[in-house]
């Protein structure tokens, strides 16, 4: 059985509980053992890297050091795209010798930079693998048309995320196609949803949400699949605002990739948190 360290991050314990539940349930079912990093702390998110670069690197490196030195594991699963970005940035900053000295001085214990940071798409696409995944499918989606929305931090900047094609990534498309979906080709795959600006710049985020979802629908999608808690919350909660401002709006369900995988491999609905969404998902998940 394969074992990975697991870094859930703050959102997976609150607004993205269903991502945590469905990720754990699918990992169990697919024979991937997840060991949560003991006493993990926040990755620092965007607020710390816009106020102190050194602390922004030290917080994730402290977690990576625990995986390497304490847990003796090679890789860590980080389903939240924002946390994935910060932990990857920790590894990236460690490659700069001057920064590395400062970071380790702040962290206070050694880290050799060996831990691979894997996001939600990587886990299904590479750690489990498409062949293995296909073998486990018991309830395939019969040609459901979905738009895979990658947002920003799964792929950008490529020097940090190591993404092969940051402008038009396709690994999530490969995973949903393995589940029996049809991944539509569309234009806003990697456009920004507004991230946590949604807490104070609601009008701007309504515009960004509308632009993304209108294109998904125009390209034929019946649902949007995501791998980031911030993307999910914005696209899911801001559609009422779009409808109020523009009228005539057909809501699109916004579903985590881990929920899609869970449904296809036969994880009971109750473990997937399908009732946590603002826009009902049962029309496509039932």
């Amino acid at each position, binding site marked *: 059985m394969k074992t990975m360290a697991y870094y859930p991050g*703050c959102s997976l*314990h*609150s*607004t*993205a*509980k269903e991502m945590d539940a469905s990720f754990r349930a699918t990992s169990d079912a697919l024979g991937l053992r997840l060991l949560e990093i003991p*006493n*993990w*702390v*926040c990755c*620092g*998110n*965007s*607020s*710390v*890297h*816009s*106020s*102190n*670069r*050194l*602390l922004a690197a*030290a*917080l994730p490196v*402290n977690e990576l050091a625990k995986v390497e030195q304490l847990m003796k594991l090679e890789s860590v699963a980080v389903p939240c795209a924002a946390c994935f970005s910060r932990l990857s940035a920790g590894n990236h900053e460690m490659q*700069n010798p001057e920064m590395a000295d*400062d970071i380790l*001085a*702040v*962290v*206070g214990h050694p880290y050799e930079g060996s831990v691979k940071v894997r996001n939600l798409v990587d886990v299904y696409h590479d750690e489990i693998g498409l062949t293995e995944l296909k073998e486990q499918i018991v309830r395939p989606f019969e040609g459901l048309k979905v738009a895979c929305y990658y947002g*920003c*931090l799964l792929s*950008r*900047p*490529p020097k940090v995320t190591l993404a092969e094609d*940051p*402008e038009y990534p396709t690994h999530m498309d490969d995973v949903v196609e393995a589940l029996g979906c049809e991944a539509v080709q569309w234009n806003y795959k990697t*456009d*920004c949803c*507004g*991230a*946590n*600006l949604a*807490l*104070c*710049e*609601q009008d*701007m985020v309504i515009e*960004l949400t509308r632009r993304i979802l209108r294109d998904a629908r125009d390209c034929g999608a019946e649902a949007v699949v995501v791998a980031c808690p911030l993307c999910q919350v914005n696209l899911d*909660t801001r559609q*009422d605002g779009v409808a109020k401002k523009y009228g005539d709006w057909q809501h699109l369900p916004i579903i985590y990739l881990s929920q899609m995988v869970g449904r296809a491999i036969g994880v009971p609905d109750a473990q997937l948190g399908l*009732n*946590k969404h*603002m826009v009902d998902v049962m029309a496509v998940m039932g």
Partner: protein
Amino acid sequence: MTTCTPSTTLAATIESGSGVNVFKCYQCKRCSSGCPVAPYADMHPATIMRAVQLGQSDMIFEDKFLWLCTGCETCTTRCPQGIDVEAVIDELKSIALRDGRVPEDAPFANLVRLNVNSIKRWGRLFEMELLMRDKLTRPSSMFDDVGMGLKMLRKGKLGLLPARGADKAAVERMAKAAEAITSARALGTKETG
């Protein structure tokens, strides 16, 4: 032939904090073309880069752009010169917060401060506290998204208590150490620059 090495104090400060030499920018504006928030402010990534080259800090700090930037990394990804534009923007945000140079119509700056404090206080982000403190310190937001917040509470997506189990002491220790090193470096730049 003589060569000229341009320099401004602002550009030097940015370089020492972010490692970016802003004079590599030749204003092709690919960063701004892809920027999702450029339409909502007067400045945009390319004008920010130009203003740093010319040492025009007022122009940057009086505009709302820094506090609309979502950190989407499109500018950095697309720069043909390989400039980490986002790192420049982050460094400018840090300076604005440190020196109190945030414009009035920039509610996001408040959220950044509260977010950092919440992480220091609990070791993890306590979202409910962040939302409540934001409403208290920014009364104009009092009634924003109340209906949605209630729906999320009902669905169990917002916790009423902070997380347990985080190594808070480690965060406190690292924050102190990082701040000490950062301010020593900033002082060094001011003395030599």
